[in-house]
């Protein structure tokens, strides 16, 4: 679905000769405005090392062609979000059956970002209306949660959606900082987004969205890869590609450790 939409946008732009350079899928522009947003990060790869315990990444950006007066009256708003790779999620609900709590109902949702860390200049409701934010998947409460397969009578769908958002936030995978984007000089801003310790590895993207007087102006997306490094990466790959050999090695390591233990501490 997403692919189709993307292709459609691209083909529309491609048919307009003047807008040919806008065919870049990482950019979405509202043609009513002349302001442009651009962002940069110091790296396009975050390495998870063995002592990784979360990290802050700082995104710098600028608004091109910003009106000085509007800047002074805080008419521009910026939302910066780091979105993790999309994964399907299953939400299960426990119910009491014969005295014990067991998983009874479950709803599967179409792929959603496995992690979502967002910073903005102001709380989202002050930046744009709900419809607008929802149409662009901006904000934890606005990420589209589309169930797949059976949902029963659907009466619990809202609860399941809320639970998914609540649990994602409780685990630190979804977070927001409504004052995390700050203007450091006229049109320059700095955004801090937090990566939790349990950040999923894979292709993430940094989305920066510019609003002017509650209206969408432009969105810029840059990719960011989160990768395991060195030994962690090696072990993970080995465990998945040569899983049988990995199991045998795990057993040999255990045998060796146990044997060493009994030899080192042998008293007789």
């Amino acid at each position, binding site marked *: 679905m997403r692919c189709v939409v993307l292709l459609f946008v691209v083909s529309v732009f491609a048919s307009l000769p003047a807008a040919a350079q806008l065919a870049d899928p990482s950019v979405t522009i509202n043609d009513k405005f002349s302001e442009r947003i651009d962002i940069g990060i110091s790296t396009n790869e975050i390495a*998870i*090392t*063995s*002592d*990784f*315990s*979360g990290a802050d990444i700082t995104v710098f950006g600028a608004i091109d062609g910003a009106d000085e007066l509007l800047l002074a009256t805080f008419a521009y708003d910026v939302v910066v979000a780091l979105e993790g790779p999309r*994964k*399907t*999620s*299953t*939400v*299960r*609900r*426990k*119910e*009491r059956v014969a*005295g*014990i*709590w*067991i*998983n009874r109902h479950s709803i599967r949702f179409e792929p959603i970002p*496995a992690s979502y860390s967002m910073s903005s200049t102001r709380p989202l409701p002050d930046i744009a209306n709900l419809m607008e934010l929802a149409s662009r998947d901006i904000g934890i409460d606005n990420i589209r949660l589309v169930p797949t397969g059976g949902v029963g009578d659907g009466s619990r769908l809202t609860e*399941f959606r809320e*639970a*998914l958002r*609540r*649990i*994602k936030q*409780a685990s630190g995978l979804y977070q927001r900082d409504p004052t995390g984007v700050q203007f450091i000089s006229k049109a320059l801003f700095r955004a801090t987004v937090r990566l939790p310790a*349990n950040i*999923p*590895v894979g292709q993430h993207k940094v989305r920066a969205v510019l609003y002017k007087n509650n209206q969408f102006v432009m969105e810029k997306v840059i990719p960011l890869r989160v990768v*395991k490094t060195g*030994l*962690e*990466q090696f*072990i*993970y790959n080995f*465990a*998945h590609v040569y*899983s*049988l050999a*990995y*199991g*045998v*090695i*795990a*057993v040999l*390591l*255990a*045998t060796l*450790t*146990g*044997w*060493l*233990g*009994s030899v080192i501490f*042998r008293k*007789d």
Partner: protein
Amino acid sequence: MTIYLPIAELSVNIFVILGMGAAVGFLSGMFGVGGGFLITPLLIFYNIPPAVAVATGANQVVASSVSGALAHFRRGTLDIKLGLVLLVGGLAGATVGIQIFSMLRRLGQLDLIISLLYVVFLGSVGGLMLWESIISLRRAAKNKPVSLRKPGQHNWVHRLPFKMRFKRSKLYLSVIPVIMLGFAIGVLTSVMGVGGGFIMVPAMIYLLRIPTSVVIGTSLFQIIFVTAFTTVVQAATNFSVDIVLAWLLMIAGVIGAQYGVRVGQKMRGEQLRAGLALLVLGVGIRLGFDLVLPPDEIYSVVSGSFGF
């Protein structure tokens, strides 16, 4: 100090993991059990995904049972023939258990079944052992001889066919109950991530009437192979063995076990059995409460591979 676990895909505090390993190693050295029934629930309490906790627990038990079995082998308290017969059943049981494990994970009931099995087995084994050890403690207080094995006394188990002679254990016993016991333990090993020593030891003593002296060594001997088999199959089918986590637990466990053994040697058999019974019962009751008490969060989310 944190360390990133490559398979569980999260960062943990290295000292918490080492502490867990050492504490469980101490208790397993003291009571002569593998400690899998303690390590797996502890890992789950510490937010390690249950699938990883179970598979990694099995891997850790390999190390502690190798260590223990070698000590028993040197002392001559290991009946290899009996161990091999148990193993036949054990490997078959583990094969079936892995299938059950994968199926439960698909159905989303893995956590429940693991908890239920723990509650049922820890509760009943702990209760029975406590009962028995209280009786023998009281008998010991009256200075009467304590004997678990009453020679000449037979139960239905000893009337079964296909008998085999086990020299080291001084037994002439049908292979059917031995293989069946091995099979049951094999299933539990792969579903619960335990060696099954805490069930195997009492079953061998009370059900098969095998002399207590060879029970622990023989049980450890067969547990090595069943847990090794489970580790390999879990790694190959579920990719859920975290070698970094397992190794940290082993190192701390092997060291902790040495101190446990020393403390254990200063205690009397009945006291040890009573202590183990209380420990087993305690873990069972703790897990039982979790099943019965209303949970803080009745929803749970599984994304991608192991969920969180």
